[in-house]
């Protein structure tokens, strides 16, 4: 799975959590909570969905690493590579 695939999955799941927001216009360096107006419940739903889609463990302590779309892609790519090797 490459970065583009991960990004697509993340965008899909953000779309499920915040269906009325235009993800095409989302700044990939913006704080997701601010940019999409999501709260901790939404964020947890997002983490649950990503966990199911990618099969990677995302400890609570790592939540800050998912705070922007770019950082989340980087973090999850690293996680997937570790789990492969």
């Amino acid at each position: 799975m490459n970065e583009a695939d991960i990004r697509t999955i993340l965008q899909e799941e953000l779309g499920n959590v915040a269906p009325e927001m235009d993800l095409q216009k989302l700044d990939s360096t913006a704080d997701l909570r601010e940019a999409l107006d999501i709260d901790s419940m939404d964020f947890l739903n997002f983490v649950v969905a990503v966990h199911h889609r990618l099969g990677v463990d995302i400890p609570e302590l790592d939540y800050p690493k998912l705070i922007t779309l770019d950082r989340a892609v980087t973090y999850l790519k690293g996680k997937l590579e570790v789990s492969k090797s």
Partner: protein
Amino acid sequence: MVEFRMPSLGADMEAGTLVEWLVKPGDQVKRGDVVAVVETQKGAIEIEVFETGRIEQILVDLNSKVPVGTPLARIRTGLERKAGVAVGPVPPPPRVAETPARALRAAPPPSQPATTTPAIVRVPGAGGRARASPAARRLAEMHSVDLATITGSGPSGAIIRADVEYRLVAAPASVETKRPTGLNLDAMRAAIAAAMARSKREIPHYYLEHQVDVTSCEQWLTRTNASRPPDERLLMAALAAKSVALAARRFTLFNGFYNDGKYQAASAVHLGIAIAIRGGGLAAPALHDVDQMPLDELMGRMRDLVQRTRAGRIRSSEMSDSTITVSSLGERGVEAVHGVIYPPQVALVGFGKVVARPWLVDGAIGPRSVVTMTLAADHRVSDGHAGALFLAEIGKLLQEPEKL
């Protein structure tokens, strides 16, 4: 044999239009299954069945508008009751006359696998013309929009009012939102306005606030969540909800309804969860019997409820029977919320965001996590002293999160 009837989804609802059947004769249903979608003035609602049994007969055709109380289907239950006794969903008494939640309508479930939406049995469409709700048809006619050119986002692809509205406003590029979610924010605003104006007109509110050290809650959550997969993790909001429900069971002056000059304490604790809607809106659907619900189940239900409510998929049983409401501002909020009571309820408990503060513990100052809880209560029913004991009890319960 029991009859499944058109439920009342609020005091001002006289009739509803059946826009989709999710079951057909012969299907097994159990209590709580969503069996139909009904469109009301303010949007479509998923209707649940209150009986377990087999659908014997469908009595109302698609797109028929029928009064509240009209039998919609006959259900053969396991235990046959006396013939002629209708045990359909008893229309709830006209309690919350203007629940904002009614401004919601059904939207297609998200494609992700984590949802708990029950399996849906599709029935063939009416055939012929495009399937559309009456409200959608009216709006389309008014604006000379051809329904055949619209893709429906309703159940089974039916065209609903929001689809037509979306078509009408789809042009301007300045529109911030991308697609309709099933929420009619204008209708929701009107419903909030009506309920809150009634509240401030009729309810003599009094307010109390109480700061509570919730460090033990945070530590317990961190410890508990560390070994759990994401879908079993807990949030502070669940601890808050459970503590309010447990306290509300004991303090009966804050859990019930004030109607016609009289207070009636409720026998169960149905907790309204205030949920902010992106773009400006608010709904407070109910979770039932929260005082008796294990914390893990409560958390799962809150997650599901928040996601469904924000996507515009709320269920009939969640709409109008909260006995008390909780409003949590969450981590991006401010320190305190002084709420407005949802009539005919008599209390609302607010939680501000958790903040780090210097705090005195055993004679020494240290950093602690502190939350400001507030109570808005109805002075026709209770006084400040009772309210203070109620709020203090919630604070005490939060000192032992492992017991919640």
